[in-house]
């Protein structure tokens, strides 16, 4: 379909029919989430699911449109005064669900909380020199050094605004079942039980278009079979974030839509250590990984074979689709072939193979299956891949450079900017995140240039250069760019289900089917 032309061009991404709904009120819905959430506070839990909840309750200064453009949020207007200074003007009349108006103090307190050392969002704010209220409704943020990517920072992925009083009162305990969340979004949380679900009610004081849905229950049903049965027996009205392998079974009971979620699944090799310091070994892995097979078999075609960490949708704001398309097409493809893999390995210093461990998070069974598939291929090369399941939390805790020679990198960008992936993972100076210990001066230079670039297209080209240069070295072996499946019962629709839909107030766009 025309709107989706850019993504369709990369093949495979199934289109979401431009669904339209009526304004008829919907009293209540129950939707399933595939795993439980232990806290609603996104700065505490490292998973991705609580964003889905928090994005309904809290807003940021800016918001991201379903297609990935920056849009007004609590700030109705924003300006970049110079390379290091950003000014945001707050919307009039925005109030928290407890009735208090949103003030600059609340914004400052929320940013402060995000910058706190204990916060999981602090990384995004590391480059910020100061945050000040420069007017009754004006907040000015100054950076230590120019960073073009900062414009994405005050969006829901890295900043969620709550009231100063609330944050002070519940310091360290925000998001538990007793304290819940306070925000200015279209919904407010009325109850939350870890392992059970979240109950949300419409916040009628929200400034945006009035949602049709009054009451929403998000139920945590980790068990795939139970989830499906729940849908079939009518206990739930749909499910979010369905794993691809399940989604097929749902088509008879619900309307399933697939959208790219921009996430990438990739292997990260530690290039500073044996055996992966040897490019032949990395290439052998690349040839041994049956990526089309994984996409077809494990993900049922609901994904795209990845050639780079950055998914094509991420360039939407920066470069014309045709440019990225041709650049990606020129990358070495590493088609699946065990002979090629064997040949590569034979050239390496590890001809006889070796043993290496690969852990995957329990919330990503498809990663586990892919790992097993890879292990199956590697076995014929004499490489033993030990696959191990760990909790999501454990997996994230281990996601530190140097911890393991081989790791999964499973990343959901929360912004629409390629730099969110390139800077932490390809830059040699990003020691805390560069899982591959990747060091390439050309890449570093291109990334530095992109940071200070002023024009979007110029910046885009620098970033693309970096991506291309890195791809040749294969520090990461991208496996696939994933899609998310949303199943909804046939009488409701989610309007504008773009790749960024779930980072915004998605439930506000649920309508009754026309």
């Amino acid at each position, binding site marked *: 379909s025309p709107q989706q032309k850019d993504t369709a061009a990369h093949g495979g991404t199934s289109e979401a029919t431009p669904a339209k709904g009526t304004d008829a009120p919907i009293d209540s819905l129950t939707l399933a989430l595939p795993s439980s959430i232990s806290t609603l506070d996104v700065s505490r839990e490292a998973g991705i699911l609580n964003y889905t909840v928090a994005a309904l309750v809290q807003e940021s200064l800016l918001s991201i449109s379903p297609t990935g453009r920056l849009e007004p949020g609590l700030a109705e207007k924003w300006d970049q005064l110079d390379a290091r200074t950003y000014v945001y003007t707050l919307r009039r009349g925005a109030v928290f669900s407890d009735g208090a108006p949103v003030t600059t103090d609340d914004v400052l307190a929320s940013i402060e909380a995000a910058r706190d050392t204990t916060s999981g969002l602090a990384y995004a704010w590391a480059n910020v020199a100061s945050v000040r209220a420069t007017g009754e409704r004006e907040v000015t943020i100054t950076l230590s050094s120019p960073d073009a990517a900062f414009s994405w920072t005050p969006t829901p992925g890295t900043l969620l605004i709550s009231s100063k009083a609330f944050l002070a009162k519940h310091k360290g*305990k925000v998001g538990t079942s*007793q304290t819940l969340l306070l925000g200015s979004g279209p919904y407010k949380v009325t109850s939350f039980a870890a*392992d059970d679900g979240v109950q949300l009610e419409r916040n009628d004081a929200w400034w945006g278009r009035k949602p049709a849905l009054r009451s929403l229950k998000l139920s945590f049903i980790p068990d795939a079979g139970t989830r499906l049965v729940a849908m*079939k027996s009518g206990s739930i009205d749909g499910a979010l974030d369905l794993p691809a392998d399940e989604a097929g079974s749902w088509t008879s009971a619900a309307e399933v839509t697939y959208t790219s979620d921009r996430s990438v699944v990739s292997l990260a090799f530690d290039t500073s250590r044996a055996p992966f310091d040897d490019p032949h070994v990395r290439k052998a892995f690349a040839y041994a990984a049956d990526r089309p097979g994984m996409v077809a078999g494990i993900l049922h075609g609901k994904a795209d074979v990845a050639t780079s960490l950055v998914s094509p949708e991420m360039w939407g704001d920066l470069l014309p689709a045709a440019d990225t398309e041709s650049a990606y097409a020129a990358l070495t493809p590493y088609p699946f072939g065990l002979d090629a893999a064997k040949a590569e390995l034979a050239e390496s210093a590890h001809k006889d193979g070796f043993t290496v461990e690969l852990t995957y998070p329990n919330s990503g069974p498809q990663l586990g299956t892919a790992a097993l598939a890879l292990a199956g291929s590697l076995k014929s090369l004499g490489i033993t891949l030990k696959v191990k399941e760990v909790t999501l939390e454990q997996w994230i805790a281990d996601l530190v450079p140097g911890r393991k020679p081989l790791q999964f990198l499973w990343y959901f960008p929360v912004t629409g900017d390629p730099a969110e992936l390139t800077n932490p993972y390809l830059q040699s100076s990003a020691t805390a995140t560069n899982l591959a210990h990747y060091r390439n001066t050309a890449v570093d230079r291109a990334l530095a240039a992109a940071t200070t670039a002023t024009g979007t297209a110029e910046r885009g080209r620098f970033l693309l250069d970096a991506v291309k240069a890195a791809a040749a070295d294969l520090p990461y072996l991208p496996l696939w760019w994933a899609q998310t499946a949303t199943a909804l019962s046939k009488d409701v629709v989610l309007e504008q289900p773009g790749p960024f839909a779930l980072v915004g107030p998605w439930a506000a766009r649920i309508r009754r089917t026309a």
Partner: protein
Amino acid sequence: MTPPRSPGPGPANRPAPQRPWHVRLGAALPLRYVLRRLAGTAGLLAVLSAAVFALLRVAPGDPARTLLGTRSATPQALAAVRADHHLDDPVAEQYGRWLADALHGRLGTSIRTGQDVTAVLGDRLALSAQLVLLGFAVAVALGLPLGVLAGLRARRPADRAVQSLAVVTLSTPVFAGGLVLIYVFSLMLGWLPAYGPGSGGGGDRLLHLVLPAATLGLSVTAVLVKLTRAAVVRELAREHVTFALARGIPTRRVLIRYVLRGTVVPVSTGIGLVLAYLLAGTVMVEQVFALPGLGQLLVGSVTFKDVPVVQAEALLIAALVCLANLTTDLVHPLADPRLRTAAATAPADRDKGQA
């Protein structure tokens, strides 16, 4: 030959008056016995609590790191945790403090959510308790009658049928059984909800718990059936049953008063054991039916290595197990007078079988 004497009521054989109930209860359940059992239970609990406390040490690595969970283990953070949990004190002292805290309901905070553990458990206790009670009811309501039936019809078709059923339920893992019930009663027939605890309490909750409770109950029914059957078969073979029948006591009365009476002790022991199985079963059932109860919490906490929550829950389960044990121990002497007279004096003119 002694000449026949007609028995007549003389002064010697006036019936002794029935003793009042509290005297009889005192005789049936001697205080000393009760106190000894209580002491035994306390000892058991002490041992179990020590084992539970040791869980923190079972986790590989430094306990402080364990308690930090996935938070970054900076030296400051580690020091803070050490100070918080007095990890540098002697182990005995730590245990004492932990136990004292536990007895006061202070069970620490969850590593995963940072919530107070007592509150976390409290949220889930009700649901799990309802589940276990209903499951228990199902197991008892099915297991005892079927067991008695099988025992009475031992080695006949009815017995074989009951036993085969029992073997199948015993051999079916709870998760598989749960899935089958879901498919039949929720999907095919659409009679019952398939998942979740239902909203609010009362009827909806009950409706939601029917399938889980049935799954749970069925999984332990076989144990009860086997035990009851064996007890009934054993009792039926006893001479006193034959004697009762030979005296013309109506069959039904013999069954209830003589046969079933004799099965009380083994069956009540079995019921005590079943409680342990039920507690274990909740883990699987809650997983399959997406019930936010203690079992699910346990699995979640275990995979997360959320030690304080696991400890608290283990302690709770230990207490329940001890309580069940104590109950059966106290029921036994009520049911079987022979267990009461450990301390009573033996009759002087005793004689034994010579045959």
